[in-house]
Structure formats: C-alpha cells, structure tokens
C-alpha cells in the first residue's frame, strides 16, 4: 500500500473536482440530510456502550438490598409452618397455611413496590436498567421468597394425592389473595414509608383471630365445589392485577 502523502491528496482532490463537474450531484434538501444523519446513527456500532448486567447478576444484587425484615419474616413463617405441619392434623395445617400465606404474599409484594415507598422512582427511571426491569427482578425474588415460605408446608403435611394438593392450593390461594388485595389497597393510599410493616402486622393478627374463632366458616369454604373456587380465583386475580396497576400509576410523576 502506498503512503498517502500530500501529492496523492492533491491528485485525488483534482479527480474529485473533475468528476463533480462531469456528474453534477443535486444538493439534498434539509429533510433528506436529517434522515441520513438519523440513519447513520443507527449504524454506529454499540460496542463501547456499557453492557446490561445479566439477570442472574441483577437478582444477586437485588437480593443484597432486599429488606432483611422481609426475609426473616418469610423464614419465621416457614419454620412455624413446618413445625405445625409435622405436629398437627391436616385440618390444622390447612388453617395454618390459610393464616400465613396472605402475610407472606403481601410482605413480598410490598418489597416489589419499594421504589414508590421510598420515592426513588424519579431517580431509578434515569438508570440504565429502568424501573420495569427492576420490578420484574424484585417480583422474582418476592415470589421465590413466598414459595420458599409456604410450599414446604404442603409437602411436610403429607399430601401425596394430586387432588388433595390442588384443593389445598386453591383453598389456600383465595383467602390469601383476598387479604393481599385489601392490604395492598391500604398501603397504596397511605404514604408512610413503613406503612407496610406497621399496618400489615396488626391487621393480620386480627384476621387470624377471626379465622380461628370461626372454625365452621372455614370448613364450609373448603367443602365448596371446586369450580366455584376457580371462578373466585380468576375474579380475584383480575382485581389484584388492577390494584398492582394502580400502584404503578401512583408511582408515575404526572
């Protein structure tokens, strides 16, 4: 390859001039120039940009900032549930799951909405991995925690038939969701940072006492037809999504 010195350069320039005279090029209009600039922008290589961290890394980082109170609560629930499962009858165990799972769900969900609770949304939106992804990562952690807390109870209590398991799941999910929705609505409209823990605690205690006193009601509910359970479940799921959506809206700046 010959080196590109001044002499070469002048020659090239001359060639270009001659050619330009021979083949006149129309001047493009403003719009066309803008379009070309935009197009070139998309071609530039993105190599020098910072990479998105992997999901695993996000999970790990998010785990380190998950509220320790939430984690310890989940483990307390787990321990208590396991102990009950080993000790008590099936009926008792169902009751325990009944009581514990709403608490677990809500505590976990409020962890997902941490951004709103601490007023960090404004800042977190400006970060590379935005609030949407952050929410998903937190939801994964929350569901994981919830699962860890409640699922083992089912197994320890010795349910082996699928039918039993399904019934139990439905029976346990519906009241849990009912309470979760209620608590979420409360914490949506109370702008206190620690509303979650302070409000959920006493409320849950009250509910537990009510359930224990109303043994018959519980039995009635469990013995209902499975289709009714399913319908109610779908209905509640819709409401829950609505509430979560409201939560997201409430954290918007407009």
């Amino acid at each position, binding site marked *: 390859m010959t080196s590109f010195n001044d002499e070469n350069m002048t020659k090239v320039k001359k060639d270009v001039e001659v050619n330009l005279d021979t083949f006149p090029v129309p001047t493009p209009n403003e719009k066309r120039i803008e379009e070309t600039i935009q197009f070139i922008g998309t071609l530039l290589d993105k190599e020098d940009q*910072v990479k998105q961290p992997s999901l695993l890394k996000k999970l790990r980082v998010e785990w380190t900032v998950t*509220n320790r109170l939430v984690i310890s609560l989940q483990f307390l629930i787990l321990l208590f549930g396991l102990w009950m499962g080993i000790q008590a009858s099936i009926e008792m165990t169902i009751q325990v799951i009944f009581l514990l799972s709403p608490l677990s769900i809500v505590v976990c969900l409020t962890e997902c909405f941490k951004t709103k609770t*601490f007023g960090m949304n*404004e*800042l977190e939106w400006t*970060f590379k991995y935005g609030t949407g992804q952050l929410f998903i990562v937190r939801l994964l952690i929350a569901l994981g925690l919830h699962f860890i807390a409640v699922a083992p109870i089912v197994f320890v209590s010795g349910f082996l038939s699928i039918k039993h398991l399904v019934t139990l799941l439905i029976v346990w999910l519906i009241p849990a969701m009912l309470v979760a929705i209620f608590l979420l609505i409360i914490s949506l409209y109370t702008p206190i*940072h620690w509303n979650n823990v302070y409000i959920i605690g006493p409320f849950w205690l009250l509910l537990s006492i009510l359930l224990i006193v109303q043994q018959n009601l519980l039995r009635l509910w469990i013995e209902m037809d499975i289709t009714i359970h399913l319908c109610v479940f779908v209905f509640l799921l819709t409401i829950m999504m609505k509430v979560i959506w409201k939560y997201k809206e409430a954290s918007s700046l407009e």
Partner: protein
Amino acid sequence: MNELCLKSIYKNYKTKQVLDNISMIFKPGVYSFLGANGSGKTTLMRIILNLIKPTKGAVYWNGQPIELLGESYRDAIGYVPQHVPFYPNMKVYDFLMYIGTLKGIANHALKEKVEYWLKQVNLYDDRYQKIKNLSGGMKQRVGIAQAMLNDPQLLILDEPTAGLDPKERIRFRSLIANLSVNRIILYTTHIASDLEGLTDYVCILNNGCLEQLDEPENVLKKLAKQVWEVDILPEELIYIEEQYKVGAIEKHGGRIRVRLYHHKKPLPQAVMKEPTLEDLYLYYFSEGQST
C-alpha cells in the same frame, strides 16, 4: 462534542400551562436555571430527562429524539433530584455500589469508581454510615456521587445547593467547576450568589417562559442603569413599594436604604449602582410593579 437541543417545549397540567414554548441548545458548559418557586424548573429538568413527556415539542440528544434513544441516552445522563430520601437503611458505600450496578457499570471498575467519588465528595470517612443518619448536606453529596458514577456527559442537578451551609456551598462550587470540562451541566437554583464565577450561561425562567439566556455579564449589562439606591423615611416605604420594583431593604439609623429597579431616576436623591446577580434575581422575581 455533545449537544442537547430543546425544540419548542410546551407542558400543560390539565388546564395549567407550566412551560411555554421553550427552545434552547446546550453545548458543554455550565448552565444555571434561575426561577422562583413554581416557575417550572423541575418540570423542565424532568422533560429533559425523559421522565415526563412534553405536551408539545421534543428533546434531541446529538440530533436524535431522546424517546428513541432510550437506554443509550440513560447511559449518558446523571441526575440529582430535588428531594430524594434514597434508601435510608442502606450504608453510603453499599448504596453507591447498588446504584452503580443499576447503571450497568462492570464490577471491577465499580469499586474503584465508588471509592474515587466518595473521596471527591468528601464522604470517604463516612462511607459505612447509614444514609438516614447523614445530614442534609451529606445526603446532597451522596446524590452528586451517585450521579457521577457513570461519568455522565449530561449532568442535571435540581437545586443542589438548597440546605447546604456556606462552606459546603463553596466546596460544591469548586466540585462543579472541576466537573464542567467537556460536560453539559444544567442546574437549577434560586440562590443568586451560587452563580458568581461558576456559570457559563444564565437561563431565567419566569412562569414557564424563558426570559433570558445569556452569559452572566451580558444579562447584568441589560440591567445597567436600572439599579438605584435611595435613603428614605420609614413612612415612605409603602409608597415606594407601590411605585417601584424593590430589592434589598436595609436599616440605616433612623432611615431606610432601599435598592430599587427602574429605567430612569426614580427620586432626586437616588444613586445609581452596579447591578449584581442578586439584583438580577430580585428584578425578575420580586412582586412589586414597574413598567
């Protein structure tokens, strides 16, 4: 060289107009936005950050609309919001490491950066304190450190000096001066003395309109021959306040020394004064009347 461009931005909240046809071009340098409470500073910053959408108009970063840039635009910005409690139970160091990860900075580089910025904002010794135990000024510096972690080309600070003591304010100014090389820095304030010797351009925002955008000296020049000082009796003050735009008022023995703004000599005994940045602020944002 980076360039941020606002093209006729309007913003309405329901019927209320908050921003009214704002167009500007920013090149690297320090721009300060001066405006009274509610003049739309925060709203404008949020629009530039793509946190809220303008009712009309668009923001361009290096010629491209920011909504289309998304992630790569967020890579380029650092933001210190006006009020942010952060996560109060986290330690300063952990918080910065966390934010760094959210900004997508690789682990090996992150540790170094966090320590560097902790030293820059003079928080290195307090790095293991919980954020809730910090003073207001210290929190503000945590805010600056987190904004700088990704080495932003566009740094936006919303009232960064509010709540800082005078010593901290001076520290802050030298920090900003150091950062301003090759960066676009926008910051809002309503403290006129913050601008002295720091800002390259002053933008005056009044009820959502951009009243002025110029170098500080030029903005002050426009005020020349309009600043007067006059000694009056206390009884006369009401009359003066009705007639003219009044700035600082001082007691001088039995009399009152008033600084006022008017295009011609308001009273025979009035003395013309050199305009200061404080005059600038009071001229635009004081309640009094003048034509």
